[in-house]
């Protein structure tokens, strides 16, 4: 395999940008959460790529990836519970309609 | 794969290496695509015949001698049937779901060793791979149910997803016990660890106190994950018509059946690998003769597990939804966690008899506690006003 590290980093950057675009542009709270998941995954991909290319002697990067995956899972669980709670309250998951906290 | 390569390379010495490589690559694939679907076809027949005998009937015995051609007739019939897609269905997803449901079932066989060295891929993380791939069928089930735009399909799909996700946890935990005892995730090594002893049998993990519990947990989890009786709530005919495959007909329906059976057989194969010593048995070992005997042992055990599934299907009634979830979270999961502790005891207590006594006692005490805590309320004798 002779793909340079930069390819993986650029791929991760593109994926991160896509996730960011999704989180910014969409109104549906669930899709916003999905955009955040995409961003998480691209970041973890960076970790693994760096592990493979530079620091393969120690498994620390993989441990960080595992921790990050666990945190992401916790985040998505809480986030979706919040979405459901918000839906029960507003009868909508549209983030633009949740204006009660606006100054 | 490496073993096949070695065998082929030594047998056909004058064939170029790349051809041997390709052959060694293709043979396991051909094996998986040929043998397991054939076993599936045979299983449908055997299951129908066995269920018939359990109910004091003959099974199918018309097509061919003893009905041996019945799977062929069924396949032909289902191929010729009209393929109906609901008008409001989500066409693409509706089409994709039956295709996707077969794949996880077949992928699991990649890591199931059938003879010494005879495993398609000897992954270092074999067990985890099998368990992870098995969960991917959830997505296909959900796609099928959702794309049909039918309330029964959606209910069946949601039930299936909830069930598989819930039962995955105790199943994986039961697998963790084996992984801890074997000290590896590779299926081939796990099987090798179960060799030796009396007649190659006495070291099977099922003959350990924690192994027996893990075996039971794994069977239950496997039944639930492949939505077999008594956990066939996702397709409970009396409640949901057909569950997620209500709106499927023709060959797509056949694919659903095939996916289900393949997943069930895959779980049976993994159970055999983890607890029943895989291909280990009297006479199994390296070499051609030993390899053939090993393969025979593996398939005998697989057939035994499939037979057990059929027997259970013919006997036990279906669970209720609340019982299903309560059973997974209140009985199986604590038992699986306790089982992991039991493996710890087994590993660290040095005189074997002591380990036997303490592990068994620990498991039995917890089993009794769990059954006591989860015992259903005593039913009182009913008084009827109008008799």
């Amino acid at each position: 395999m002779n793909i340079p590290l930069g390819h993986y980093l650029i791929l991760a950057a593109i994926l991160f940008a896509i996730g960011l675009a999704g989180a910014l542009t969409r109104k549906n709270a669930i899709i916003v959460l999905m955009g955040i998941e995409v961003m998480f995954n691209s970041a973890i991909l960076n970790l693994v790529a760096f592990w493979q290319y530079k620091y393969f002697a120690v498994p620390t990067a993989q441990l960080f990836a595992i921790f990050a995956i666990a945190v992401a899972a916790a985040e998505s669980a809480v986030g979706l519970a919040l979405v459901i709670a918000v839906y029960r309250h507003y009868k909508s998951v549209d983030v633009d309609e949740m204006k009660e906290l606006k100054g | 794969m490496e073993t096949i390569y070695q065998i082929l390379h030594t047998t056909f010495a004058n064939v170029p290496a790349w051809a041997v490589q390709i052959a060694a690559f293709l043979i396991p694939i051909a094996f998986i695509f040929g043998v397991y679907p054939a076993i599936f076809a045979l299983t449908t027949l055997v299951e129908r015949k066995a269920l018939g005998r359990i109910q004091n009937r003959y099974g199918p015995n018309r097509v061919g001698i003893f009905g041996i051609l019945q799977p062929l007739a069924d396949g032909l019939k289902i191929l010729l049937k009209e393929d109906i897609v609901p008008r409001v269905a989500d066409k693409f997803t509706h089409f994709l779901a039956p295709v996707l449901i077969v794949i996880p079932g077949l992928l699991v066989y990649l890591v199931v060793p059938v003879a010494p060295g005879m495993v398609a891929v000897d992954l270092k993380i074999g067990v985890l791979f099998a368990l992870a791939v098995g969960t991917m069928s959830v997505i296909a089930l959900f796609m099928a149910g959702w794309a049909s735009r039918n309330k029964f399909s959606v209910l069946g799909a949601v039930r299936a997803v909830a069930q598989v996700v819930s039962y995955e946890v105790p199943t994986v935990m039961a697998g963790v016990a084996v992984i801890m005892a074997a000290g590896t995730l590779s299926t081939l090594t796990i099987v090798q660890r179960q060799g030796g002893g009396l007649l190659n049998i006495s070291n099977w993990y099922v003959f350990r106190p924690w192994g027996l519990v893990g075996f039971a947990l794994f069977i239950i989890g496997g039944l639930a994950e492949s939505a077999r009786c008594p956990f066939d709530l996702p397709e409970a005919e009396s409640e949901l018509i057909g569950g997620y495959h209500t709106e499927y007909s023709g060959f797509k329906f056949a694919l659903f059946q095939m996916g289900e059976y393949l997943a069930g057989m895959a779980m049976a194969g993994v159970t055999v690998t983890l607890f029943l010593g895989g291909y280990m048995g009297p006479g199994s070992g390296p070499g051609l003769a030993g390899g053939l005997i090993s393969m025979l042992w593996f398939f005998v055990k697989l057939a035994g597990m499939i037979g057990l599934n059929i027997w259970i299907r013919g006997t036990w009634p279906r669970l209720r939804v609340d019982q299903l979830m309560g059973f997974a979270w209140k009985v199986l999961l604590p038992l699986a966690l306790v089982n992991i502790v039991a493996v710890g005891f087994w590993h660290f207590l040095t005189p074997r008899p002591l380990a036997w006594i303490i592990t068994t006692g620990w498991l039995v005490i917890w089993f009794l506690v769990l059954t006591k805590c989860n015992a259903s309320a005593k039913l009182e004798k009913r008084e009827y006003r109008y008799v």
Partner: protein
Amino acid sequence: MNYPGKGLVEGLAITARNFVGSYFYKDRLTTVQYPEERVQTPENSRTFPFLVFDESPDKPRCTACKICEVECPPKCIYIVMDRDDKGKPLQRPKVFDIDISVCMQCQICVEVCPFESIKMDNDYEKSRYGRFNDLVQRLPDLLKSNAYYNKIKPAEAAEVDAKLKAEAEAKAAKKAAAAAAAAKATAVPPAGSVT
């Protein structure tokens, strides 16, 4: 002894016993292998009506009186009386159709028939490929001999035969008596005219 999962284990034992037993004890198997072996139907079982003839199919007991056609609840019987060239009724059916897709096997036609002509069959193999014409039983399909009737329902047929014989004898006796009375009146005994 009571232990957790007792019911499940006992259930498994019962099904295992059934499974093994069905291979060794043929009487456990309740299935009848239909085309090769058949269930002996009870004598009084009934499917659809048929017409009885005595000697030959040309002379059925039926006189085309149409009582059954009138009484039939789902109106599945259609009868046309046969007439000769001059239009004189011949007291036998020219057309006798029973639509067995409509017939509900109520046996009322049998009850009302004054000539013991229509009887219930017990032939259950009436499936056909068509839906309409194939399921209409025409006169030739319906006519069956008294011997057949005696075969499928011996007790009932014997009773009917006895009754018909008694009726015939009574009729003959009455005729003989009438003849005797006539002979007495005319004082010319026609010996051997009544047999």
